[in-house]
């Protein structure tokens, strides 16, 4: 089954990215295909400059998902609005527009949006 998780909130202030992370991790472990699209403040979750002190590091969690085969895309326009450049995002994450999401939607089985 192919899942899409859209996350619209940033790191730490909300739990959405953590929920998407855990769902994605379990889903790929069970052999499902997962695409995460980070939109609006959600783009901040892939900022490789995140320094979380003793807390979980969400950027590293995104990298962990990429390494496990989860495909992650960030909305380039949203990222630009927030000063996040291609260079600053986690390696392996695609910096792209809504066209990427549209392409993924075409054949997905479940689409879950995490917002406010």
């Amino acid at each position: 089954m192919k899942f899409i998780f859209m996350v619209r909130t940033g790191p730490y202030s909300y739990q959405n990215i953590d929920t998407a992370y855990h769902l994605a991790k379990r889903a790929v472990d069970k052999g499902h295909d997962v695409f995460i699209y980070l939109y609006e403040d959600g783009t901040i979750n892939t900022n490789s400059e995140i320094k979380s002190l003793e807390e979980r590091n969400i950027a590293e969690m995104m990298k962990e998902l990429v390494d496990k085969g989860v495909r992650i895309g960030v909305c380039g326009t949203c990222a630009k609005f927030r000063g996040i450049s291609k260079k600053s995002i986690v390696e392996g994450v695609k910096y792209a527009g809504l066209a990427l999401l549209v392409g993924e939607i075409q054949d997905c089985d479940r689409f879950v949006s995490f917002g406010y």
Partner: protein
Amino acid sequence: MPKALIIVDTAPYGTATCAEAFRTITGLAGMDIETATVLVGDGVFVAKRGQNPSLIGMKSLEEAYSMLGDFGAKLYIVRESIEERNLKEEDLIPADKIITMDEFRKLIEESHCIITFHAGG
């Protein structure tokens, strides 16, 4: 073809939510995704005529949402939400249809992907 349903349930200004919803709607519809928008709750104020957001340095969402048809997106407004806010249809920009909550429920059932734009926190 997948159907996308965009639900907007928050007032037009004060947050970027409704403007972000507009970008999403036009983006999806512009790439041939069958896209419908539902204004519900305080979201009906997005369709209120006579907005003048230049006073707060923002672009008019009344004008923006009036153009949804040009992108091939449908606009629906929930009747109960209009009435609860003591508005009348003629106070609002034209919609493809004023729908009931029951019709809204059917749209949800028929949609392939649903994105809710709700300001909160």
